């Protein structure tokens, strides 16, 4: 009995260790995934916390959806054991680069999510999910055969529930990382979005170049 169990046990250990690899930073729901011969539009960006110590949630996402439908896609950063590849690591924080292959059409960047689970002896495991109460709408028109670069979104939080993303243009750095995971990627073009309508969740420098004061007023 013991001898017959040994290969099974080894197989299970190997499977568990393989499962301790990394998850993909790109999530695309099944109806939006292009088939093998179909035209593809790529949406590229990076997401992660500005400072790992001050980040309340190990699961951060930017949510996109096909305009007018319930099907969506997400760029994900996971910081726990089986997390996303930490492509970018600076002194305080980290980020993952996501490449979303989508069917061409109209999409909307509409929400974000901070998700965490914590354990306490009295309450057990509690899951908290923080999303925008009033969603925003940044329309994206994606054409076939092109790759669009959104930007780098680094999250900063004051306390547990007052969070925002700081936007930066890191096209050069993220393009080379994206090409490693998707070799046939067309050259990236920056997709300029007016992030003022997504304030106060996304803080971006004004088009003129002047900086913005982050998190001026408290909003629930």
């Amino acid at each position, binding site marked *: 009995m013991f001898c017959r169990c040994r290969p099974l046990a080894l197989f299970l250990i190997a499977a568990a260790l393989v499962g301790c690899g990394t998850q993909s930073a790109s999530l695309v729901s099944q109806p939006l995934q292009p088939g093998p011969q179909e035209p593809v539009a790529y949406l590229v960006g990076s997401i992660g916390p500005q400072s790992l110590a001050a980040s309340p949630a190990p699961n951060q996402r930017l949510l996109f959806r096909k305009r007018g439908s319930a099907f969506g896609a997400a760029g994900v950063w996971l910081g726990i054991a089986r997390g996303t590849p930490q492509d970018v690591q600076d002194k305080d924080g980290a980020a993952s680069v996501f490449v979303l292959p989508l069917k061409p059409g109209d999409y909307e960047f509409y929400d974000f999510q901070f998700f965490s689970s914590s354990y306490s002896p*009295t*309450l057990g495991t509690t899951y908290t999910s923080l999303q925008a*109460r*009033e969603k925003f709408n940044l329309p994206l028109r994606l054409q076939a055969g092109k790759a669009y670069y959104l930007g780098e979104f680094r999250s900063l939080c004051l306390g547990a529930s007052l969070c925002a993303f700081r936007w930066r243009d890191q096209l050069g750095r993220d393009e080379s990382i994206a090409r490693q995971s998707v070799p046939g990627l067309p050259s990236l073009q920056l997709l300029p979005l007016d992030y003022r309508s997504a304030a106060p969740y996304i803080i971006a420098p004004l088009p003129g170049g002047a900086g913005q004061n982050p998190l001026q*007023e408290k*909003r*629930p």
Partner: protein
Amino acid sequence: MIRISLLTGVLLLSGCGTALKPLDYKAERAYVPMSVTMPPPASRFDQQKQREVIQVLRDTGAFSFIDGGYSKTGYSLLVDQRGGKGAGVLPAVLGALTLLTVPIPYTYERQLHGALYKDGELLKSYAYKRGGWTATTWYIPMTEPRSESDMLGELMRDLDHDRLIPYQ
């Protein structure tokens, strides 16, 4: 959390109503459509309390249209009932053990913070506090809901007196 749920269970079982009493303020005219916001509820108990607050505010007749959330245009009233304290663990447990017949005294405090915004800017803020002694028995009526209703009534009277919100 534990003491709140224990106290609530005790009070609900005893039949003491925790529902908010109607306000003693009745408006003559209604304000323009505006929004009334409260901090995000932390539990189902908070959700129920917020529903009651909105209902008593509607019943005063002062609001023609109550929206939710902040807006960059128009008037918003923030109503915050956080802060304050209720019975501790000891009075609640002793009260439950004695089946709410022996009066165990405790002090409570209730706070209400109101803030009026116009076009995203703060116009005026209001703060009220009520506190006192009470006991955990079934024959002494609960004073906490009455304190909350009193403070909401005072807030409505102050808003009417300050005339910061136009009428319809």
